[in-house]
């Protein structure tokens, strides 16, 4: 399982990947989140580097952010203050939650990377005004990248990048097929690291690894999991497998995940259209993968698709403490899923998982209930 190990180890330590990109002479732009089009950065010849947190406790950022603000964002800002993201030449964020928006302001004031760009995503999706607005925002982003590199981002290059990234998404879907059998051939913990590793690696390299992984899984034969209820994990960002491992150790098979570091990243391909900018704008305004977006119904339908496709018995909704969008959504969706016969439990977590005992009791009780 060499490809599996390679992807997992990339996920565990992003630093070597970033340093390698740096050595290649390309500019490295850190970005958050799945609404920032990687394709555009790839076409501009810069490295799109997803920023994840670490399990390390926050210290320096406490002087800027109150403890009742998003711990994930505090964690990222803390890493930046400590100089641990110093390989970044710039930052690209988009308009999802307040925490991400405010990270931008603080980053610009205190971290001072040479390049900072904010993409404004209209949050009311599936409308023409949203699409038109998004189109102009992406055109502006393209110009900003052109100023950064001094070279044009051509439609041709953009089309090639979209194709490459669509290939990544399609390969990840194929990898996820191995979660569908009665006894999945890929565990939830492995799946999370495979997607995170894919997000981090240059896509040319990731695609080769994913193709190899598909071969490996095809001959795996034995499930890494013991039989148990089929669980889907959703909620705020999870960038560390600890929680998923805990769920699987409690006797569940995690067979699906609606997470920024999982399905949200690859579920929707970009249309391969003759106007690539238009295709990207459509893509951004028509993927209902975040609790920040409107309307909630679209997101619910997408999640029900996952429930059906992966034959989910129950949903565990992990709310990062103080993550407002998901805290609001969790309460609403619990009712909606239960009306559809899918039990759901919402659990509050911290970004740096500690004191898992109480959480484990709740997870175990939920599994006993199914």
């Amino acid at each position, binding site marked *: 399982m060499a490809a599996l190990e390679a992807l997992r180890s990339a996920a565990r330590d992003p630093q070597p990947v970033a340093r390698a990109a740096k050595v290649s002479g390309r500019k490295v732009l850190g970005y958050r989140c799945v609404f920032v089009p990687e394709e555009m950065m790839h076409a501009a010849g810069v490295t799109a580097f997803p920023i994840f947190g670490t399990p390390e406790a926050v210290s320096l950022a406490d002087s800027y952010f109150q403890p009742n603000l998003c711990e994930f964002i505090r964690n990222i800002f803390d890493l930046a203050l400590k100089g641990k993201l110093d390989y970044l030449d710039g930052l690209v964020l988009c308009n999802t939650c307040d925490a991400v928006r405010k990270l931008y302001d603080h980053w610009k004031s205190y971290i001072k990377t040479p390049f900072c760009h904010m993409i404004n995503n209209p949050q009311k999706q599936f409308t023409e005004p949203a699409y038109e607005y998004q189109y102009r925002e992406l055109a502006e982003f393209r110009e900003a990248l052109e100023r950064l590199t001094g070279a044009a981002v051509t439609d041709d290059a953009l089309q090639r990048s979209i194709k490459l990234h669509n290939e990544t998404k399609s390969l990840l879907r194929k990898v996820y097929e191995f979660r569908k059998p009665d006894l999945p051939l890929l565990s939830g913990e492995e799946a999370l690291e495979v997607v995170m590793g894919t997000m981090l690696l240059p896509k040319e390299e990731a695609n080769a690894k994913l193709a190899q992984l598909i071969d490996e899984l095809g001959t795996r034969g034995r499930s890494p999991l013991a039989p148990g209820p089929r669980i889907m994990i959703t909620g705020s960002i999870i960038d560390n497998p600890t929680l998923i491992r805990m769920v699987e150790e409690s006797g569940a098979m995690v067979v699906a995940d609606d997470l920024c570091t999982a399905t949200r990243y690859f579920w929707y391909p970009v249309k391969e259209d003759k106007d690539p900018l238009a295709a990207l704008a459509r893509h951004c305004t028509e993927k209902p993968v975040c609790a920040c977006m409107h309307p909630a119904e679209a997101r619910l339908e997408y999640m029900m698709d996952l429930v059906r496709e992966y034959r989910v018995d129950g949903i565990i909704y992990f709310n990062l403490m103080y993550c407002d969008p998901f805290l609001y959504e969790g309460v609403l969706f619990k009712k909606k899923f239960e009306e559809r016969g899918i039990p759901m439990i919402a659990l509050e977590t911290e970004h740096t998982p500690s004191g898992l005992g109480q959480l484990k*009791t709740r997870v175990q*009780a939920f599994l*006993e209930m199914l």
Partner: protein
Amino acid sequence: MITAGVDVGSLSGKAVVLDDNRLVSWGLVPTGPDSAETAKEAMDIALQKGNLSLDRIEFVVSTGYGRVVVPFAQRNVTEISCHAKGANYFFPGARTILDMGGQDCKAIRCDANGKVVNFAMNDKCAAGAGRSMEVMADLLQIPLDEIGPRSLQLDQGEVAVSSTCTVFAKSEVLAHVRQGAPTNDILAGLCAALASRVYGLLRRVGIEPEFVISGGIGKNVGVVTRVEQKVGLEANICFEPQIVGAVGAAIFARDTLVKQKKPAAAR
């Protein structure tokens, strides 16, 4: 068929011995630093009272936060499932259970067989659970068992204790003391704050009769009365609400044993 259930909670350890469906005996001890030792102490008391020895017990299920360290248990089940099962044992009509324990509060909905269909628990903080009552009893120098009755004998009127955090609530209570508020009125405020907190939890799972309260705070008449008023239902409370989880564990032990004893063909 003799089985046992052991519930190692954050504040007390409970053990129950069951002979088929008959409750033989139980033991109740405060939880010490060593959970395995606490489990053993509670079990020894139960065995002694039932005139039994451990080798007579055919199957033991453990529960509670210390459930994984009980050395003589063959299986562990969470306290959520056990409280539902135990409540069903005492009150077969039970559909909504409120367990108020040492550091957790749970609102549980179950079916006619005592199987959990939904539940909600407090978050990490123990405010509103047994531990916060102990902190306040200590602060006001009142024996724990007097809090309930005295909270119902108002002097001038209930004072407001708004906080949902034990540490802050303690400062609030101190402020009331300094301003000369009568102790009973402060106790009333505390019980009311706890009742309103658990009511929110109950509403999350929905309330359906019959209503059962288990756990140590089930002995606090001040909290129970206020919860009943909010819920609009009378609470069923068994003679010893602290052993409900252990009883549930003993029933799980019995059920496991029955399943094991059934010949494979009959399964």
